[in-house]
């Protein structure tokens, strides 16, 4: 993202003092436009300070098909985002509630899901399962990563199967769709949440607007596939402004009975009875 003192809001075109924008969690103070966040920023504004313990930081994509210029694109994305892959996962607390949380990074190859993203999401679900913690995933993705061909399509199956086991174990999974959440990520874990939330104005859909317009030979309404549109069509549970997301998640975590981070009570071992 370009540095500088002023940032231009892509929606209302106003120049906003960058510090003010950041204080407001990158929501435009003039028009409430929710600027896209990196995965790091997302975790920073969501989790309690210093509570994040990352999983699988060293896990990255390889180039299984020998796909033209994929390794270059990966290196570029890694250099740009200073992340190994398009998702960050780990443990963290929200107002004290313990969670396993993941955040996709749209700035890393459009948040696309290849083998590494699928693997990290599946492992996050499995760790949530093993530790009996709620799973929370913030999605922001253009879909499957085509440079990994069908292997990326198989990540839909891998992640959905892992989430299925979480449901079987009676563990909660909250899905938050951020701008944009489209394609393969919507057709797998993003739409499998027990409760599905979205940020205002987020683009959410399976097929792209252009493809749909070419197919139906009509222009689509302006608000098509927005979070608000999806809410009205019954596809989501709630649209929550970024500034209220933490408290909304905290209430949901309380409701579903997430373990609360409290000073560990060390119970004395029962004395051995002769």
């Amino acid at each position: 993202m370009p540095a500088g003192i002023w940032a231009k809001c892509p929606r209302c075109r106003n120049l906003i003092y960058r510090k003010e924008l950041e204080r407001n969690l990158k929501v435009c103070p003039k028009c409430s436009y929710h600027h896209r966040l990196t995965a790091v920023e997302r975790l920073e504004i969501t989790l309690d300070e210093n509570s994040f313990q990352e999983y699988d930081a060293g896990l990255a994509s390889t180039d299984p098909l020998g796909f033209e210029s994929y390794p270059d694109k990966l290196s570029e994305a890694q250099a740009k985002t200073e992340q190994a892959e398009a998702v960050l996962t780990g443990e963290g607390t929200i107002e004290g509630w313990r969670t396993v949380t993941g955040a996709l990074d749209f700035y890393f190859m459009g948040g696309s899901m290849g083998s590494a993203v699928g693997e990290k999401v599946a492992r996050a679900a499995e760790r949530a399962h093993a530790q009996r913690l709620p799973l929370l995933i913030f999605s922001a993705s253009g879909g499957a990563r085509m440079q990994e061909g069908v292997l990326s399509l198989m990540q839909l199956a891998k992640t959905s199967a892992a989430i299925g086991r979480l449901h079987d174990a009676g563990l909660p999974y909250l899905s938050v769709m951020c701008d944009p959440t489209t394609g393969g990520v919507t057709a797998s874990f993003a739409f499998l949440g027990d409760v599905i939330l979205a940020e205002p104005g987020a683009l959410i859909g399976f097929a792209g607007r252009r493809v749909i317009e070419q197919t139906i030979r009509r222009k689509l309404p302006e608000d098509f596939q927005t979070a608000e549109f999806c809410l009205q069509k019954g596809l989501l549970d709630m649209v929550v402004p970024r500034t209220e997301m933490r408290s909304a998640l905290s209430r949901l975590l309380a409701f579903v009975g997430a373990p609360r981070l409290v000073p560990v009570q060390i119970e004395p071992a029962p004395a051995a009875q002769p």
Partner: protein
Amino acid sequence: MTERRPSPAADLDRQLADLEQEIDRLRRRSREHSVPVDAEIAPLVERAEQLRVQIYTHPSPWHIVQLARQSQRPRLLDFLGTLCSDVMELHGDRLYRDDPALLAALARFNGQPVVVIGHNKGKDTKENIARNFGMPYPEGYRKALRAMRLAEKFRYPVISFVDTPGAYPGDEAEERGQAEAIARNIQEMSRLRTPVVVVITGEGGSGGALAIAVGDAVLMLQYAVYTVISPEGCAAILWHDASRARDAAAALKLTAEDLHALGVVDEVLPEPFGGAHRDPDATFATVREALQRHLQALRTVPIEVLLDRRYEKYRRMGRILEESTQSIE
């Protein structure tokens, strides 16, 4: 690799297309002017056939895409009619409507009850318009899930035939939750408490295919394709040039042979020379034998073992790099 020199395969294609055009032109002239042209046409027809043999002896990925889309390729109804008896079609998702692009049926395979689902592509324009070219709406996927639930209830195996360009990309499909319907099916198939055998017979178009393609055994006809995006779509996005679909077809590794090597497909079912439509009976026999073998093997596996195996199979799919192998648990 980025420069645009026609490959030898592209050259053969052009020659064949030119010949076919010439043959057509002569035939039209013959009809319009009632002049006999057989003597002129015969060598051209022979040459065209030679070219076809040349092309299909070692078909390129792009040729395989053409074979997978071949209009006379055996369709779901052909497989169902030949391989199954006592077929009773089920209709509707109980929520919105009956989607003709996706078929669900109760049937018997070798006398044993099974539930069959599949993309219902047609063979001509009329059939295809009626069945939306085998591109389901969410209600199609939800009908399939309903049928699979029935199979689970009675512990009958599911046989799923995959042949779709993709899920229908329309506004109503989006509004009714295309993504949710696909996600739901994928998740439920990963833990359906009955054996699932999938046969990819033609086009395995991305999420719209996977929505009925998670199973214990995934079989694929030799000249079917299975891909995360169409070669045309891939070329358009990557190179802003849909005409580079041929290159994309090779890059995407979408053939049965490639996918078997990548561990996505469990078995490749050989096709007759030149494609399944050249000898449908041979194709049916191959599919029948394979289905029989897999269903037999799966029938004896205890359900918990079956579910663990299915989970592990998908859990392992993909290739990753891992810096350190220290375990967190």
